[in-house]
């Protein structure tokens, strides 16, 4: 019963999404790839080749930073999951009505302020002359000032803080949809708290866990501000390298190659995560 009118309507609906995806997502990425395979051989003179990718693999700084960014992001994702799950569970299953809404709102607050502000707050807190250091000193817990900024732990604190919301929200949504009676049935059949968690709650929450992990991983991997502002002299982040290539080195070609590698990495990790957890992108991300 596809009449001509509804055909027309269909194409009218199809036009914006195609424009959006083709012009803003697909073509730019093709363009990025094209630039990444052009090598600069002199002022205003370029030729095609994989030299930029070769540069990435021959310079330890690049691939080490790359690997570091990946591992730290995975670590941050795992940490966020571990810290966020109990909170999501508390909100979804242990609170009702007004309390639930309030706690949920409180989880959202960090998201409502720009990342810059959040990071700025952590800097005020963590620095050697900052609030926590002073607090510890005045409590007599430490003798001198303690430096908590400029290290990987500070980056972790910031990354987890920045992305926890994106873990908690999908988790709350999926856990909310878990019928209490399933948990009760688990206990009724003799399960302990651990067993019920492992066999009933976690499998049910899997789509939420995966969706949360994907988003958190992407946010960490693509983060720029937190590692730059909170990290120390060894705390390099791959997005920082991309920025450096684009801005301070005027080397768009290498920067594009870096960008493409980061994209490949993120796709790979997301793909592996989906395969391992036997979920699909549509099923996890498409339902938030």
């Amino acid at each position: 019963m596809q009449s001509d009118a509804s055909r027309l309507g269909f194409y009218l609906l199809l036009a914006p999404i195609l424009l959006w995806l083709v012009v803003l997502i697909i073509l730019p990425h093709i363009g990025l790839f094209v630039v990444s395979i052009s090598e600069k051989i002199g002022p205003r003179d370029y030729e095609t080749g994989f030299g930029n990718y070769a540069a990435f693999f021959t310079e330890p700084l690049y691939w080490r930073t790359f690997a570091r960014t990946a591992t730290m992001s995975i670590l941050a994702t795992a940490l966020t999951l571990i810290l966020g799950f109990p909170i999501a569970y508390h909100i979804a299953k242990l609170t009702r009505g007004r309390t639930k809404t309030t706690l949920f709102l409180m989880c959202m607050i960090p998201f409502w302020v720009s990342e810059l502000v959040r990071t700025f707050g952590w800097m005020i807190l963590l620095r050697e002359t900052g609030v926590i250091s002073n607090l510890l000193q005045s409590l007599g817990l430490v003798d001198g000032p303690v430096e908590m900024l400029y290290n990987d732990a500070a980056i972790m604190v910031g990354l987890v803080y920045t992305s926890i919301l994106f873990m908690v929200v999908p988790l709350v949504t999926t856990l909310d949809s878990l019928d209490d009676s399933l948990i009760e049935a688990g206990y009724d059949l003799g399960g302990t708290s651990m067993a019920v968690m492992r066999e009933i709650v976690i499998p049910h929450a899997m789509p939420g866990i995966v969706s949360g992990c994907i988003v958190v991983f992407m946010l960490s991997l693509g983060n720029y501000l937190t590692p730059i502002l909170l990290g120390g002299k060894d705390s390099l982040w791959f997005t920082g390298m991309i920025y450096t290539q684009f801005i301070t080195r005027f080397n768009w070609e290498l920067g594009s190659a870096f960008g493409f590698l980061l994209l490949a990495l993120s796709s790979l990790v997301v793909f592996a995560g989906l395969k391992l957890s036997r979920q699909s992108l549509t099923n996890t991300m498409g339902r938030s």
Partner: protein
Amino acid sequence: MSDPHPDLVCSDLTKDFDAFRAVNHVSFEVPQGSFFSILGPSGCGKTTLLRMIAGFQEPTSGDLRIKGKSMIGVPPNKRPVSMVFQHLALFPTMNIGDNVGFGLRQRGVGKSEIKTRVEQVLDRVGLPGVSERRIDQISGGQKQRVAIARCMVLEPDVLLLDEPLGALDLKLREHMKVELKSLQAAFNTTFVYITHDQSEALVMSDNIAVMNHGQFEQIGTPHEVYHAPSTAFVAGFVGDANRIDGKVAALNGTALTLTSDGGTEMKIDAQAKALSVGQRAQVYLRPEAIELVTSGDGVNVSGGVIDSVLFNGANSSVTVKDQSGSLLKVALPQTGAFATLRKGDKVFTRWDPRQARCYPVAGA
């Protein structure tokens, strides 16, 4: 009603939610191997009672014993009872075999033994060889049986069922009623079944407790509850009934005379508990207890016109409007007599004084 070793004994169980008393001093015993139903309207406290037995709610006061052992303070995973939830609560992330084997896994039973016992119990509920299927690959009635198998594989002393047929459609529900009863007989396990559907309770149970506002109004066999309701609530709730309000005009042993509010005189032969002359009373009269007759003589005979004919095959009925304008629902005989009645026809109704039940009106 009294058994040397009842599987389940509740004495004076009470549950308060803040100021609201959901279950109010309920006491009962369920003998081993019997099918016990708790029947009551929505919100009367059935689920609360069942959840106290399962351990998901602590009684405010009273005791609860299973096989003689008090269950107060025992967590749900340590009680020898299993529960079939209203929406079954099958684990959607597991296949059927894993669902049924869940309880055994928790007890640390070996893999291969779990497998055989799961197969056995699925066999007994008539579902051999479905272990590998996902739960969305079987029908509603089959899910029902899987839920029961999941509990029965643990050999509980008492199986609790919270309106498990509520979600099924009509035809399947009719079928599962019979099936549940025969499963219970086959396993010979004590079933405690709650429902608000009187026909489920009547068809399946050995004993029925009729519950209202947190209290038991009557405990008895289906026959007793249907034919000898001990309170007005039971008479009205179990089965279809015409209610006639009136006043006691005369009282003579078990022979009562009442005048209905419409002015009709009624003769009733019943245990006249707590009734005295002049008191307001309610008479309950089942549609099938009323006969349509052609002549206007005799006890409890009155004339009227057919107000509507509800043809429904074997369950057809008519409503008759008497002179005072009040309506009486009368079941048509299954023999097909009176099938030609039409709206507006004149008829006479008659009923036996022993078929009516009469209760004083509280506070009147």
